């Protein structure tokens, strides 16, 4: 009888622990830490942009949904709705400037003010893809 009770308690406790682990580590798992996430590719801003222009499916398979590191000449910084975006303009089109847009993490807001248009900048970010005008990088950090 005692063994049976212990067994039932053990099963119930194991179940509760399993549910708790599922809740904490699967259902409620944290978002990727974009600051510490390793990059899978490192390339020039122009190379990234032109790879999407010349072969989008290939570029998607290489860069979209991945953390990448890019380096290039900054054109300008834009602020909209408290979001700061580092912009690399490489072309002109229907939506005006086209190129690579990097939405910065708040921790990089101060860092980007040290740079002006024409400066060389190294940025790490999560590539969301190419929207037919720009390659979008999000959760970006300045690395130089």
């Amino acid at each position, binding site marked *: 009888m005692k063994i049976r009770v212990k067994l039932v308690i053990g099963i119930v406790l194991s179940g509760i622990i399993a549910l708790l682990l599922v809740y904490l580590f699967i259902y409620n798992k944290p978002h990727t830490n974009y600051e510490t996430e390793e990059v899978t590719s490192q390339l020039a801003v122009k190379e990234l942009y032109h790879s999407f222009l010349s072969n989008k499916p290939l570029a998607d398979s290489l860069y*979209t949904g991945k953390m990448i590191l890019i380096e290039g000449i900054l054109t300008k910084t834009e602020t909209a709705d408290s979001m700061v975006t580092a912009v690399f303009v490489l072309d002109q089109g229907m939506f005006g400037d086209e190129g690579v847009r990097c939405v910065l993490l708040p921790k990089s807001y101060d860092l980007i003010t040290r740079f002006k248009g024409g400066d060389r900048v190294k940025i790490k970010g999560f590539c969301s893809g190419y929207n037919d005008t720009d390659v979008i990088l999000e959760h970006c950090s300045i690395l130089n």
Partner: protein
Amino acid sequence: MKLNSILLIVMLLIASASMGQKYVTKTGTIKFYSDAPLEKIEAINNQVNAALDTETGDLVFRVLMKSFIFEKALMQEHFNENYVESDIYPNATFLGKIINAGEIDFKKAGTYKTQVEGKLTLHGVTKSVKENGTLSVSDGKIMAISVFPILLSDYEVKIPGAIAGKISESIDITVEVTMSSVN
């Protein structure tokens, strides 16, 4: 030859004068919201491209599906991998027109009711939509807001059998864009 050149310049001037001014943004917002017994689903995308030609009323929206941010990482994963399949269908687009653009004075500050119709493409499926919105002209900028529901089944977004009925079939979409002139 000289006369031809003058004619060409005159024609280009007339053509450019008859073209409407174009307003664009690359930082528009689209939110979606759904409340259901199992899960409240809410996400936001702040990287929305939008363009409006005030002469023709032509309106374009482009969205990268991977730019939607959810509170829960697991929900974001499921959204991209199982629901909208963003690796296969990375973009959502709307190509349409403000039907009553002729009634709007885009040069005069004010708020106007609008009707927009066009084709919405999501998850590789294109559907005709006709929705109401509000357009405000202020300080040389145009702000457009629209809230409308879509049915997931219309865009062949499948909800797994185990949780069907616990996730709402209808999703409320809120579009907010502030566009600036590019001409």
